[in-house]
Every structure is written in C-alpha cells, then in structure tokens.
C-alpha cells in the first residue's frame, strides 16, 4: 500500500493518501478513556500553554509544511478558517499586550488563502513568510528568520496552529485525529482517537500481522513506539508502520528507483512524484566515509557534519567542538538520512553535544 507524498530536499513530504481526494476518517474501535483521567490530561495541556504564553513577551504562531508529513489544513479545519480567526481574536483579547506574529510557509500561505477566501485576518497581526524547505518547520531553524533567540522568554511564545486553537477553545481536546500511514496498516486513513485511551486498543485493529516499526511523527525525526499500551496524547498526529525485517534485495544498487527517493538525482523517482516506498532498510551497508560532501551540501545550518562526527568519535575537546559550532546542530537527521556510506553521523554528533553540555 502506498501513500502520496512528494520529494522534498532529501526526504518525503506527505500530501494525502493515494486515491483519497477528501480526507477519510475511520472509527475508533478501542476502549474509551476514563473521563477523569482524560480531563486531567487536557487541563495539564491548557495550563502549560497558558503559563508559557503569559511569561512571554510576544507570540509567534507558526505553520510550515516542510516536514515529511505535514497534514493538509482541511483535515483539522474542515469548516474553513472560522475557527482560526476566532482563535486569533480570542488570543488578542486574552493577551492584549503581546505582539502577535504569524509565520507561514509558502505552501501554507496558499492553503490559508483557500481557508480565507475574503483575505487573511490582518488586524494586529504581522505576517512572516518562509521557504518550505526541510527542515524549516523546526523552531531551531526558523528562529533566525524571526530574530528569536534560543534562550529567554521569547522562546516561550511559540505556538503551533494546533496549540493556538486548543488554547483558545476552538479545538475539541477530547479527540485527536491521527493519520495512519505506511504499509503496516490495513487502511491508510485518519482515525479519531480519544485522548487518554490506550493507543494499542484502537491501533492494533488496523495493523496488519507481521513485524512493523511503529513511529510517532515523521520517518526522519519521529520517535519509535515500542509500547502500544501508552495513552493517546494531544500531540500525536501521525503514526507510521514501516516494514521491518531483514528482507534482502537482488542488485539493489542497480534498480532504476522509480519508487525510491534520493538526494542524489540518479534515480528516476523524481520524474514520478507520488508513490514512494518506505522501509527501515539501510539500503546499503555501512562503510568508511569517502568524503562525498553530501552531508555538508545538505546541512541546513551550514555545519560540516563529517568533521563534527570525526571530532565526536575521537572525543574532541569542548573548545574544538564549540569552534566548529556543534551547538548549532538542530538534529534534523538529514546528514544521516542521505549519507551513501550509511554512517549515523547525527546520533554521534548528538552524543558529543550531550557530553559537551555536561
């Protein structure tokens, strides 16, 4: 089973499910959560958001489609932009001293134009624009565009569109719609899951038999889900079931690659956007670095990942790592994703950064 997505700078960008022009929702077959437990989770989320915004000096709402699985806006806002507009008005009334800025990726700006045929809400809101190149959706990267510093209270004022509508009471926080993606699911669609319910009780119903790697989030930075008894959380928007297991391929390097994507333009896949195959397979074996320079060319924050990796391996001094700006790494994992020698640069760099901070 495939799902539609188009290539982005080295990975995938989900655009909807194949043969599903309109989002399709599946029923939740699992258990219902304990209402008291669910309300406690919701209260905690809302209190956390309110505390953050109160402590901040300005509010930055962001919506950028550069991640591998950004959801179509129509899924969360089927009735147009009314709820976003209401949420913005509520926010202005509730925090009148906070300047509000709205950062939109170029694709989201087009989607907003569809939601607001009469024009975007303008009063008291500054609009900023950003290119949707991966990984622009990571706050660590767009802080430069908005002049935000990583430390201090400005950082607290970040709100995603989900958080905005939740905070202003324009989203029913008792439910979350999760996109079920990947070959491991019987049907690729959205499921409306109750917050606080056991994830496995509903998801297992749609999961095929066999070894699948369940990932919460996207395939580049997502967290593996090893325990399906966990409760459904408000932030869970996408679940992937990727093919797991050592399935060998004959002459994998000689395949034309219509269903495989690559940063290198050697494959025909770029001529065929849409159906792409995702596996947890390394698609090659780990070798010594041969200095192809792909990690350097693709690094969104202009670091030299292979140099940092080398320093990380030999446990380079704190000064040395700082000199080569290890603290600027945003852990987008792009270097590991596209390394032809299949070296896990990102995790070694992250380990070294952790050592450096201690």
């Amino acid at each position: 089973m495939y799902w539609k997505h188009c290539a982005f700078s080295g990975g995938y960008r989900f655009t909807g499910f194949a043969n599903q022009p309109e989002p399709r929702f599946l029923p939740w077959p699992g258990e219902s959560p304990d209402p008291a437990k669910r309300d406690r989770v919701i209260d905690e989320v809302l209190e956390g958001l309110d505390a953050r915004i109160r402590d901040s000096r300005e509010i930055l709402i962001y919506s950028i489609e550069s991640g591998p699985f950004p959801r179509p806006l129509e899924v969360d806002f089927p009735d147009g932009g009314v709820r976003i507009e209401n949420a913005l008005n509520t926010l202005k009334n509730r925090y009148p001293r906070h300047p509000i800025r709205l950062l939109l990726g170029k694709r989201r700006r087009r989607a907003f134009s569809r939601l607001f045929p009469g024009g975007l809400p303008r009063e008291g809101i500054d609009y900023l624009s950003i290119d949707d190149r991966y990984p622009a959706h990571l706050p660590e990267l767009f802080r430069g565009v908005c002049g935000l510093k990583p430390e201090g209270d400005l950082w607290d004022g970040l709100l995603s569109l989900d958080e905005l509508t939740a905070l202003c009471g324009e989203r029913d926080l008792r439910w979350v719609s999760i996109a079920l993606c990947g070959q491991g699911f019987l049907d690729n669609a959205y499921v409306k899951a109750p917050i606080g319910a056991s994830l496995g009780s509903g998801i297992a119903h749609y999961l095929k038999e066999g070894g699948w790697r369940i990932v919460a989030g996207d395939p580049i930075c997502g967290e593996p889900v090893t325990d399906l008894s966990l409760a459904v959380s408000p932030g869970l928007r996408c679940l992937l079931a990727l093919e797991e297991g050592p399935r060998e391929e004959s002459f994998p390097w000689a395949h034309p690659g219509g269903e495989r994507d690559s940063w290198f333009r050697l494959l025909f896949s770029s001529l065929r956007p849409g159906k792409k195959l995702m596996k947890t397979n390394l698609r090659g074996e780990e070798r010594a670095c041969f200095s192809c320079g792909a990690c350097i060319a693709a690094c969104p924050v202009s670091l030299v990942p292979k140099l940092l990796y080398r320093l990380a391996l030999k446990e380079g001094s704190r000064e040395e790592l700082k000199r080569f700006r290890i603290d600027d790494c945003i852990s987008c994992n792009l270097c590991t994703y596209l390394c032809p020698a299949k070296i896990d640069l990102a995790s070694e760099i992250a380990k070294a950064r952790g050592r450096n901070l201690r």
Partner: protein
Amino acid sequence: MMRRIIDKIGNTWYGISRGGAELSGGAPHIRDSVDIKRYMFSVILALLPALIHAGFVFGSRVYLMLLISYLSGGLVELLFAVYRKQPVEEGFLVSGLVYTLSLPASLPLPITALGVIFGTFFGKELFGGTGRNVFNPALVGRMFITLSFPSSFAEAYDALSGATPLSAWGDGQLYSMGELLFAGAPGAVGEVSRILLLFGGLWLCLSRVADWKIPLSYLVSFYLLSLLHSLFAPGLLPPPLYSLASGGLIFGAFFMATDPVTSPECGSSRIFYGISCALFTLLFRAYSSYPEGVMFAVVLSNALAPLFDQLVYALRYPLSRELDT
C-alpha cells in the same frame, strides 16, 4: 589460505549482488536509496559511452586492457581484504576503468598490469583502502608507468594514426574544434571521445555524484590562466580554447579531479582545488618536457587538498579566545 580467498570472492559477489539486510537503528527510520555501490556504478555508467566508442576506434584491445586492469587491481584488493579480514570493495572497478581510459591503446599489457598493481598498492591500500587514500590510485599507477617506461609510451603514441593535439600544435599544426570534440584527434583511449566524456561528466554533476565546483573552477580558471599566460609569454601554449579541448583536460576535470576521496571536503575549498589543478596543468604544459600535465597536476593538488580544507576551516571557524573561557 586458498579457502579464505574463495570465501572472499563469494562474499564480494554476494555483497555486489545482494543487499538491504541491515536496518536503521533509530531516527532517521528510512535512508536515502543511494549507497556507495550505486554511487560507484554511476561513474562507470557515465564512462561507458566513452569506453564503447573507444572500442570502435581502437578495437577489442581496449577491453583486453580493461580486463587486465580489473584482474590485476582486483587481485591486490583481494589480497589486502584477506589480510585485513574485510570485504572487497568495488572502488577498483572505477579506478581500473579511469586508469585504462588514460592509457594509449597499444601500450604493452604487462606494463598496463604493473601500473594498476602499483597504483592500487601504493596509491590506495598502503593508506588503508578506499576512503583513506590521499592520492587518486589510478593516477598514481599511470604516473608510475609514465616515468618508468617513457620509451614504451613514446612507441605507443607513435603507433597512433596521427599526432596528438598537443604534439601536433608543437609541430605547427592545429586540429579543428570539431575534430577535437568529435573523435578526429588521436590520443589516449578515453581522450578520443571528448564529447561523450563531456556528456558523462555533466550527467555526474547534475546527479550530484561529482561536485560541479571542481570541473567548473578547473576549466574556467585554466582558460583564464592560459589567456593571461598568452599575453605575457606567447607561443609557449596553444590557444586557450584549443588547450582546453586537447589532451586529457576534460577527462581529468570531470573524472580524475572529482574523485571524492582525494579532493577537498568543503565546497569552497573545492574551488581552490580546481584552480590549483588548472595552475599546475598550465605550468606542466608550458614549462616541463611533458606536453600533457593533467595527471601530475591532479596528483599534486590531491596532496594540497587537506591544506585547502584547513584554510577554509580557519577562515570559517576562526579560533576565538572566548572559547577558552
């Protein structure tokens, strides 16, 4: 010992023919479809049209030379793989092809074999194998036999159907640009099909296998330096455009200088590297007894590659006193 060699050959074939058994340990959960095998294979694909064309021009001897190069280079790789208890890597398939295409077609086969053995042994394996070598192994082997067997090379070039473009210019003749690009001008095996090399090289750059900065800076700076040189010392070099299309310059710029292992790592240092290749090529062509200088220029620039990287790192990441605090 024999059993280990047979096992190694089996493993090599298995490694080439099968793959995809390893899984990603965590995020990123998926990986790019290109691995080193596909990367290397694409260089071979880019050179294949030039090789086939050379087969038409020089006959089946070209393929025999290639076979000898592969067998000799493969043998050295195999012995080192057995010694190091590591798999045989497919780098020798690329360097063997580049090496063969840089030779004159009637070079004696034992010399062909000796060059590739020397290049693989001293140019690659002594440094630790693929990814750790400082010099391009194909060029080390080619340089060794050029300096060791000058008379064999002279005889091989004499056996060509006519003078090579650079020696023809020395005799007061010039080939037309059409002859230079479209296989009218004799030369080494790969040099007779410059237009096919150009297309292959452009494809490598477009597909990001070769970094376009190296061939572009090499060719543009060579053209500009030749132009400048002709103003101050006219008559030492052919006209700039003729120089650009003659000898192994196109082959060298796209397929020798772009070897990722022996070229610098950073984009900006790769521009310095291209300029250095151009400068050395010009100096060798104008002031040495060898009419062709690409091979020496690339090997010398290989030695300078780490220096260019250090220079760029020093400029981009200056040492600061604040770091000590």
